[in-house]
């Protein structure tokens, strides 16, 4: 079946007086790998279940391609869902599990045999047809669940934290496999996860969900490098968030006076066009964008802040420092190389960063 586009039009769902999701407008293109990213309880799974037809929205319309599907029952939607706990039926063998959807569609026996075989091959899981789910490892169960869904050739693939029950190494392997498989099939995929690394690695686009609203929608790069608000900046990767006031804007440079700590000015790339001198802003700086040096380097002293090492954690490829500066705790991640000297707790140091690495975050927007 042809892959479908999915559109959320002003979707809202509440339980009692409590809105779990509200005013969701999203357009997911056919063939896209789209991720709902957010903390637990943010409503991302509810959105997935609305697409699957297990949850009826109280407001708005869901479209598959151009057809509104609010009133189409779950069993007629042809959207395949892989459940977080896999939901394999313990009373059926692997073969029977995978063949289930085909039997529902009343396909011929030979057709079922060949398609089940093909589906199991797709997920690289042959030779276990006669086993029961309980006799399989977690990773194998995951593959069966995937095969069971793919075999019906759904128009959309829904994945509800499918990797969360696997161990770390397997998770990374499955991530790549899933991605290859999805690319090969060109299948519209909606992926739900709370793992930002997973979301960044897999998605063509991400919607970061917070408290039932879309906090930001964009490509992984947009989300990571230009977080739209402090929630996204903090949730997707780590960010040091510094409040300040715009002093001046000149062409592509701005000067900001930081609010906390001793009076400090930093220079940044220009903020968005509407910003005025005197505006309050939040600056986000990623830990890996910081440099830590023993003493001030040359120049005007801009973007160089005095601090003291509170703690250091050696991580092989990098070192993570917690630094007391500007009256708060700042995190820095410094790439490591052999022979490079490391700082110790109590060392007085200078934290420096490039103007380009500072991100403007609209101050406390949205909620």
């Amino acid at each position: 079946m042809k892959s479908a586009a999915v559109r959320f039009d002003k979707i809202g769902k509440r339980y009692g007086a409590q809105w779990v999701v509200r005013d969701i407008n999203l357009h997911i293109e056919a063939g896209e790998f789209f991720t709902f990213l957010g903390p637990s309880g943010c409503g991302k799974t509810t959105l997935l279940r609305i697409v699957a037809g297990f949850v009826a929205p109280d407001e708005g319309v869901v479209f598959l391609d151009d057809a509104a599907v609010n009133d189409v029952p779950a069993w007629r939607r042809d959207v395949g869902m892989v459940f977080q706990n896999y939901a394999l039926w313990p009373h059926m063998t692997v073969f029977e599990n995978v063949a289930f959807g085909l039997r529902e569609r009343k396909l011929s026996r030979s057709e079922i045999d060949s398609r089940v075989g093909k589906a199991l091959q797709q997920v690289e899981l042959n030779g276990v047809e006669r086993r029961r789910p309980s006799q399989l490892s977690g990773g194998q169960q995951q593959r069966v669940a995937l095969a069971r869904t793919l075999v019906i050739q759904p128009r959309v693939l829904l994945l509800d934290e499918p990797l969360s029950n696997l161990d770390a190494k397997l998770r990374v392997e499955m991530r790549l496999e899933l991605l290859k498989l999805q690319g090969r099939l060109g299948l519209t995929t909606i992926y739900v996860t709370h793992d930002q690394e997973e979301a960044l690695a897999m998605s063509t686009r991400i919607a970061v969900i917070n408290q039932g609203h879309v906090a930001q929608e964009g490509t992984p790069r947009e989300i990571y490098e230009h977080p739209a608000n402090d929630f996204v900046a903090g949730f997707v990767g780590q960010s040091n968030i510094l409040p300040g006031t715009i002093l001046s804007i000149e062409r592509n440079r701005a000067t900001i006076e930081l609010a906390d700590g001793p009076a400090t000015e930093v220079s940044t790339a220009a903020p968005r066009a509407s910003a005025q001198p005197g505006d309050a802003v939040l600056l986000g700086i990623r830990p890996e964008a910081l440099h830590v040096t023993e003493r001030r380097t040359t120049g005007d002293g801009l973007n160089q802040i005095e601090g003291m090492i509170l703690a250091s954690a050696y991580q092989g490829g990098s070192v993570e420092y917690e630094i007391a500066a500007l009256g708060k705790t700042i995190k820095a991640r410094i790439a490591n190389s052999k022979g490079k000297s490391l700082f110790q707790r109590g060392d007085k140091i200078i934290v420096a960063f490039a103007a380009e690495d500072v991100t403007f975050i609209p101050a406390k927007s949205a909620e």
Partner: protein
Amino acid sequence: MVGLLALLVAFILYPVLRVLWISLSDDQGDFTLLHFLNFFRRPLFREALWNTLWSGALVVFFSALMALPLAYVLARYEFRGKLLLQTAATLPLVIPPFVGAVAMQLILGRSGMVNLILMRWLDAPIPFMEGLAGVVLVQTLHFFPFILLNTMVSLANVDASLEEAAQNLGCHGFRLFRRVTLPLMMPGFIAGALLTFIRAIDDLGTPLMLNYKNLLAPQAYLRITTIGMDDVDGYVVCVVLVLLSLASLFAARKYLSLAEYATLQSAAPVRRRLRGKALPFVWLLIGLILLISLLPHIGILLLSFSKIWSFTILPTTYTMGHYSEILFRVPHFVLNTLRYMVLAAAFDVVLGTIIAFLLLRSRVPGRNLLDVIATMPLAIPGVVLAVGYLRVFHGWDFPGAGGPLTSSWFILVIAYTMRRLPYTVRACYAAFQQVHISLEEAAQNLGANRWRTFVKITLPMIAGGLVAGGLIAFITSCVELSSTIMLVPRIELGPIAYGIYLYMQSPLGRGAGAALGVVAILLVSLGTYLTYRIFGGRAGSAFRI
């Protein structure tokens, strides 16, 4: 370990093997199948076998008919009055089946309440309670909660996502029920049906009370008690009974192993609120079930207070005399019961704890054999165990009893202990399983030796489970008639169940028998209530396989 194994072999395995051997050997002690051939040649026995199978199947069928819709409604829906329905559905378990039999006679019998009312319009009474129909009716009303409770547990273990996955793949409605829900509730249903079947064919009291003798259990009893200990036919009937139990266990084993799997995951079951049009229907159902389950209780209560009750819808004169009879004039039935039950429960807990400990925390060779023997009583009808005891111990002097063990009341305690051992072992096993080994290791790591670890860490954590295990033994022994009736050495050593049986033999004694029945109901209710208090929602495991 060796002592324990010897104990179980002596009181479980050996008596049964002895029964088996007698049925398979001739006068010279040589092996022969002749007795079995004779069994199948006699029309009386063939009929008894057929009746046993047929009535057992009917009991399972009608119990399922009552229990399955109830189980589905209770497991899947939230509604007002649910708790009431749930309680009502377990009430039959607190009344011993043979007591229920007497009560049902009064209500549905030839000259019972219902027929007296119906006779105003009908010419002849409806024979609800005649012959096999009566046995099936009484047993169905008593045993259907087994199927209900077991099926409910299975349904509660079906995670919502298992059904959603099927819907997602295009399955819904009745098809969804048939292909996914039904197979997933099968393990519980089969376990309940198995338990019902085994208990029904083992039930000696109900047919005796209803004076229907052409079933295997009463045949075995009559052979041994009237013709004598040396009549081989009695032993053959016993062996056939055991074979029936074993065969049904064997037939159900596939589902029982599935049951274990299904409970591995923690499930978020489907729950819906029931509203609107369906609600009055459900309440009607509640009323009906409540009425049916309470019928025997009402009958027995009325009878226990009635001075004269014959050919009238309700008793004509009431009295407290029956209670003073059983509590003050001949109090030994009640006192004996308390003594036997407490002792049997205590022994069961001790044995159960040791066995569970050996199974879970040791590597002693032979512990699996221990498990197998301790589970065997599930499939050994009470009549058979009693016959085995009589045969093995009648010539055996019990130290301190001044005579053979079979002439001492202690034989009853042993029988109850062994009969209920599988349940207690299971309760203790479950209790032990809750204590992760690392909790004990932590104590040892901090300097406690094995014994102190057990006393200070393990015991406090399993105490609740042990008490519940003891209560299960207590409740179920209270209503045990099939082995009691054969093993009671003298009337004054009999427990309540025996007293009821004796009193019920004469029309004049019925009132006192009913009063004893009420006492039994109260004892069992108290035990059940306490079990629920301790076990909470898992109390159902008392009535599961």
